[in-house]
């Protein structure tokens, strides 16, 4: 187990997440992509913590990333609910008011 190995796996997770967030039409599926990206960040921070500087400050940073993930999912579900109420849809393509 090396730092490079951990970071490669994290990069793969982030890349899969980028694909999902960009390509999925259903809002919840796009959120799944975002969450995969944050999972990759979690793994990368954990690896950097363990292999470079295993002191408590790095763990606190991990906790912040975890909190960001929680906020993302809660706010994301709320926005998806709002979208469903207002437009009767769960697709990103139907939520383009700002674009038009």
């Amino acid at each position: 187990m090396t730092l490079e190995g951990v970071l490669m796996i994290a990069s793969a997770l982030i890349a899969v997440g980028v694909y999902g967030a960009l390509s999925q039409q259903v809002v919840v599926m796009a959120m799944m992509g975002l969450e995969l990206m944050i999972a990759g960040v979690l793994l990368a921070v954990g690896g950097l913590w363990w292999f470079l500087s295993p002191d408590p400050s790095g763990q606190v940073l991990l906790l912040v990333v975890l909190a960001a993930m929680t906020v993302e999912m809660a706010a994301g579900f709320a926005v998806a609910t709002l979208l469903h109420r207002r437009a009767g849809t769960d697709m990103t393509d139907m939520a383009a008011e700002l674009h038009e």
Partner: protein
Amino acid sequence: MEILTTVAFGICGLVAVGSGVLVFVFDSMARATYALALAFVATGAALLILQQSYLGAVVILMMVMEMAVMAVYMVMFMGMNPALMPMSMVHSHRAALGSAVAVFVVLAAGALLVPWPERRSAPSEEVTRDLGNAIMGSHMLVMLIIGVVMAATIVVGVVLSSARTRYDRLGDDLDGRSAERDDAGRGGAR
């Protein structure tokens, strides 16, 4: 022992990435949700192998709960049995694939080419206790801000997702006088 952890970490990583890919390969939301749950459990297990005993467990617990919420959400809004409805809902497939490959190449090149420094300090025996002491001592400001952000998230969730609140029915002053003007639904309390 070293080889064992390496193998275990490799398996966790492969499961995480593999089920992450499956999330977007499966054509039903239910299977995608389970695949995402598996990806997060594998990520949490990988964190456990990196000696993050508390945060790894938190990731696993939180994500299993989140997938349960997602399942409820699907049943609520998709109005169908999500396991039985095949679907392909993808836009700008090629651009997304290109971006993903580019992101992976850049990040992997960074991981492999950066001359990472040597580890500076030895990990302590009591990693979880250290974390607890840090967020209740020297890093308490972080914990305070996370607490406020979480409370704000609760408010955001309720405000965004509630359909029709007392402010719609009774007006902004809650006295009923401005209800007619403020109520988009033209209902009012009376």
